[in-house]
């Protein structure tokens, strides 16, 4: 009986630590979740004279994908984004973050362009406004401009089915 309290304390610590162990510290909750998404207005990657921005997708469910040619995870998810774009499930808008224009254009030419447009965020200012800290990052934006979900890291069909599809169907923010 004398060991009851230490054992309970020990077990509680085990629970706390195992929670911490399986929690990825790099995955930070976005402060925008359930809030109005940040806006942007910059030149398009493919047509430098054209100004594109968040106004272009207001009123519809949209996916905003932050990508760059230097980002390995972006190459990994590119095939899935192409597939998603072809399925017509949802329009995808790119933010080409801290990239080189020629290389980014070559990337789209070689791998295909799943984006309605890609905003060219050369100096990373749009990225900062969106709280981006590691590409790829993908935001699901509701028709009234609320961030329903944010995914960090490469997307794939399984993650899409599990985390995005139910939200798109329901239109509610993820917890």
């Amino acid at each position, binding site marked *: 009986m004398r060991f009851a309290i230490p054992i309970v304390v020990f077990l509680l610590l085990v629970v706390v630590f195992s929670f911490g162990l399986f929690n990825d510290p*790099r995955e930070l909750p976005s*402060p925008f979740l359930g809030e109005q998404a940040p806006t942007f207005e910059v030149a398009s990657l493919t047509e430098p004279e054209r100004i594109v921005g968040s106004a272009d997708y207001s009123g519809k469910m949209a996916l905003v994908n932050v990508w760059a040619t230097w980002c390995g995870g972006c190459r990994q998810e590119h095939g899935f984004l192409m597939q998603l774009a072809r399925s017509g499930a949802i329009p995808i808008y790119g933010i080409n973050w801290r990239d080189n224009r020629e290389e980014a254009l070559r990337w789209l030419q070689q791998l295909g362009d799943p984006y309605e447009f890609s905003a060219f965020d050369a*100096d990373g*200012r749009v990225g*900062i406004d969106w*709280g981006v800290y590691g590409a790829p990052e993908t935001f699901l934006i509701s028709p009234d401009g609320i961030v329903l979900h944010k995914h960090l890291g490469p997307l794939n069909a399984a993650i899409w089915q599990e985390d995005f599809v139910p939200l798109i169907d329901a239109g509610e923010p993820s917890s």
Partner: protein
Amino acid sequence: MRPLIACALLFAMASAALAIDTDKAFDDPELQARYEHIIEEVRCLKCQNQSIKDSNAFLAGDLRREIRRMLGEGKTDDEIYDFLVARYGEFALYRPRMSGKTLVLWIAPIALLLAGGFVLVNILRRRMAMPMEGDAAAEE
């Protein structure tokens, strides 16, 4: 002699690698001091155990640039921290501000210390109350 020179060279190069953000941002020493203080308080989210002062990740560079811009525009330190927290969350600050979400971070150490002190006092009291040659089993 050669190894000595090589060593000296190595040390010379190592000291150059210490400072990431060497450019003086402001002529005004007061602004410069505020700038240096803020960049020490902000976490580099790409490389989480470094401040943006110590990191050469491009994100840290971008954040330093934004902070320089805001200081130049006459923003207060709090406005700058608000800017960062609004985008990256309290995690961006090494010393998160006290709020509903971060309350437990601030209270937990004090609460644990008090709990520990309470247990210690209790044990000491019990020991003092024990007869010098008595058997502990009688207490159970």
